[in-house]
Every structure is written in structure tokens, then in C-alpha cells.
């Protein structure tokens, strides 16, 4: 069964801290995505990766970076966390060979920056 896992369900960090959010998929998918979700704003794409070591900026990349050293793992990094990065973060993956580009989501990480 398809599975996307995220390292934490809930995370509380202080302003200025460096924060790592990890995502792992076990489906050998080429594409992986990081979104943030805020009330009234829907899902906004932060970064995505279509291959190991490849990445592209999404709609709101400012304040974030990503790392993909292995196919199954995609990390989102907040270099210096700020309170406006308090949000729900969702990771997803998809198979390039699929004609649908259906995405499989992890359970989400609710990050609070104080």
C-alpha cells in the first residue's frame, strides 16, 4: 500500500531556530512536493522535486529551502523560523509514469513557531 510519512505530527519551535521537516515515501515515486496549508488560502506549493538533487520553486519559496539526496526522502528546511511560518505542512509524492499525476499525501505536520 502506498505510504508517505512525515517525521512529526506536531512541532513547536522558537523564532530563529532552524527547522527540518522530513518526508519519506516508499513507492519509488520520482516527484515529491511540499505544501503549506492555511485557513482560507488552500494548499500553496512551496517547493517540489522531480528527481534526486533536482528542485523547483513553487508559489511561496521565500524563507524555505529543500534537500533531496535520496529518491525516497524530501526535506523542507526553515533556515530561521518566524511566527508567520506557523502552519500545517503537507508532503506529497507522485509517479511520473502515471498519466494522472495523482498525488499521495502524508498526514501533515502542524508547526507552531513561538
Amino acid at each position, binding site marked *: 500500500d502506498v505510504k508517505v510519512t512525515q517525521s512529526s505530527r506536531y512541532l513547536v519551535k522558537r523564532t530563529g531556530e532552524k527547522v527540518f521537516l522530513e518526508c519519506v515515501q516508499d513507492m519509488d515515486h520520482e516527484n515529491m512536493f511540499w*505544501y503549506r496549508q492555511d485557513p*482560507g488560502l488552500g494548499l500553496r506549493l512551496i517547493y517540489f522535486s522531480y528527481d534526486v538533487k533536482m528542485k523547483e520553486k513553487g508559489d511561496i519559496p521565500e524563507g524555505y529551502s529543500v534537500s533531496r539526496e535520496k529518491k525516497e526522502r524530501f526535506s523542507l528546511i526553515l533556515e530561521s523560523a518566524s511566527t508567520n511560518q506557523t502552519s500545517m505542512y503537507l508532503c506529497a509524492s507522485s509517479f511520473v509514469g502515471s498519466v494522472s*499525476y*495523482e498525488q*499521495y*499525501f502524508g*498526514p501533515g505536520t502542524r508547526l507552531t513557531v513561538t
Partner: protein
Amino acid sequence: SQQGEEDPQALSIQEGENATMNCSYKTSINNLQWYRQNSGRGLVHLILIRSNEREKHSGRLRVTLDTSKKSSSLLITASRAADTASYFCATAPWIMGANSKLTFGKGITLSVRP
């Protein structure tokens, strides 16, 4: 940038009634997908309709697509309290490549009253 726009933003119905949700989009698409998100969780894929299809069924779900109007509707028949969730439409671009991605709408909150 948001391609899909769902309507209404929120819907409240009685158990047993049908729920109809609409999605409009702006550019040509390869396919349109509907996802469900239970509170505080990740998104789950429900159903996909391709641009050359007009209607599709899956259990109590019926989705239609009108490419001339650039719109889709999702019908949930005989709703249950467990259908309470947020529903998102997502569009795949007409020309799909390795770095293609879905574009999600802001979502519709459905509440089904027991």
C-alpha cells in the same frame, strides 16, 4: 497561483441528502481530480476525470466535467456524517512533463449533520 476555484466555500446538509460541489478552472487541462481531507489530516485522492470524459462514477461519487465551460462538479449521494471533510479539486496541465504538477483549489468545507 490558483487554477481551480471551488464553489460554494462551505456547505451544510442533513445526513441522507445529496451534496453538490463545483470547481471552475482557467486553462486547458489533461485531467481534473477531487481530493478529500479529514480534519487535521492529509489529502486523499477520490476520483479523476480526463479531459475527454464527461462523467464518471465511483460508489456514491459522481463527477462531471464540462470543458467548454471549464467546470466540474462532484456529487456525493446519500451523504453520511463520515463525509464531513474538506474537498479540493486539482487540475493537471494539458501538456504534462516530468516536472509537471497539479494545481489545487482552496477547498470546500462540507458538514453533514446527523
